[in-house]
């Protein structure tokens, strides 16, 4: 006999909601029409809590909690949109912009970028931190796609979709902290990877213009994600 589904009740932004045990705050908020910002979480991929944009306040907790990896509990009181949270989210976005070379005006996804869109939604009109201008490579060795590390925010969606959905695990992360970088296989040119199936899933889950199709000019690249829920269902919801 299947175990009965346990229901939790809690409040999000003062609204009483019910959720299945094991659901995360992000999922329950979404089901109730509350959109918590994120750049690393994508439905269908395992959550990692990397970008910290979904941090929320939970009454009684002595720190902010990432909504995408925090499971709901009975009686929780969650705040998703306080002034403090908006301030932190703006700072996170500004730090992302200052960390690498994001030049929206000449980017292949200008107008279709999650980072750009979120910056506008949260009212980021300028970056208060000094820009770092690192010297980062562009790897265009793949026949159809390219990766520009200048535009990468290390959300690791590409790593997860390649591992969890495509099953190829071409992508991974090397280095620590500010020196972290996405690598293909054992840090080799993407085009030389034996295991890459050229499926393009990493291209389309990437929230910025870091991974893109060749042959697209400024603002011409749009990401298509329709495949992801379908493939996740076909895999029986397993990750």
């Amino acid at each position, binding site marked *: 006999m299947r175990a009965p589904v346990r229901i939790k009740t809690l409040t999000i932004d003062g609204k009483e909601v019910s959720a299945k045990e094991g659901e995360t705050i992000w999922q329950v908020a979404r089901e109730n029409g509350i959109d918590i910002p994120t750049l690393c979480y994508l439905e269908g991929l395992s959550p990692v809590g990397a970008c910290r944009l979904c941090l929320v306040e939970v009454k009684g907790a002595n720190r902010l909690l990432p909504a995408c990896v925090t499971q709901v509990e009975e009686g929780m009181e969650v705040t998703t949109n306080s002034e403090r949270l908006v301030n932190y989210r703006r700072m996170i976005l500004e730090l992302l*912009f200052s960390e690498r*070379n*994001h*030049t*929206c*005006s*000449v*980017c292949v996804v*200008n*107008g279709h970028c999650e980072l*750009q*869109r979120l*910056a*506008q939604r949260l*009212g*980021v*009109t*300028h*970056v208060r931190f*000094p*820009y770092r*201008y*690192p*010297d*980062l490579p562009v790897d265009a060795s793949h026949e159809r796609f390219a990766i520009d590390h200048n535009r990468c925010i290390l959300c690791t969606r590409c790593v997860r979709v390649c591992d969890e959905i495509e099953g190829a695990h071409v992508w991974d992360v090397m280095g620590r902290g500010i020196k972290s970088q996405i690598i293909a296989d054992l840090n080799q040119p993407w085009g030389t990877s034996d295991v890459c199936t050229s499926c393009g899933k990493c291209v389309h889950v990437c929230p910025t213009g870091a991974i893109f199709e060749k042959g697209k000019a400024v603002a011409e690249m749009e990401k298509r994600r329709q495949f992801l829920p379908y493939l996740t269902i076909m895999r029986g919801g397993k990750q």
Partner: protein
Amino acid sequence: MSQRKMRLATVWLDGCSGCHMSFLDMDERLIELAEKVELVYSPFVDAKDFPQDVDITLVEGSVSTEEDLHKIRLIRDRTKILVAFGDCAVTGNVPAMRNRFRLKDIMERVYSQNSTHKNDPPVDGIPALLPKVRPIHEIVKVDVFLPGCPPKAEAIYFVLKELIEGRIPDTSQLSRFGA
């Protein structure tokens, strides 16, 4: 008696003049603005020196040379409300794409490797490039940020209208980086 006209200046530092083109795209609204402001300094007018007591200055472009550095400080001193006008002023944008390279390497690339005449980089009569291109708020205090590459004419019009009425506009929903 008519109200004293506000003194408006527009400045072109290291940018492509696209923001100024977008300014001109305000079309017939320029006539309406001309009744409320006096354009005291701009690439559009003939004034040679940046005047005193300017109410509003729109600054297009990043700070890339010794001259830009000198100008932006002078402008700040003489302006009540300084507007970072467009992405180059706000973020560094395209001019700042050289920042990942050393200035010496860029000069060598442009004047030696990529050149037919193999002349030395010019030193007389032009301002020296700064080692790094900077958005203007890293040098002086900026009062209003208007991102966009370029900001739309509607956004520029809204900002100027609000400033003329004595309000500081919220630009966040008007425009965005790369717009």
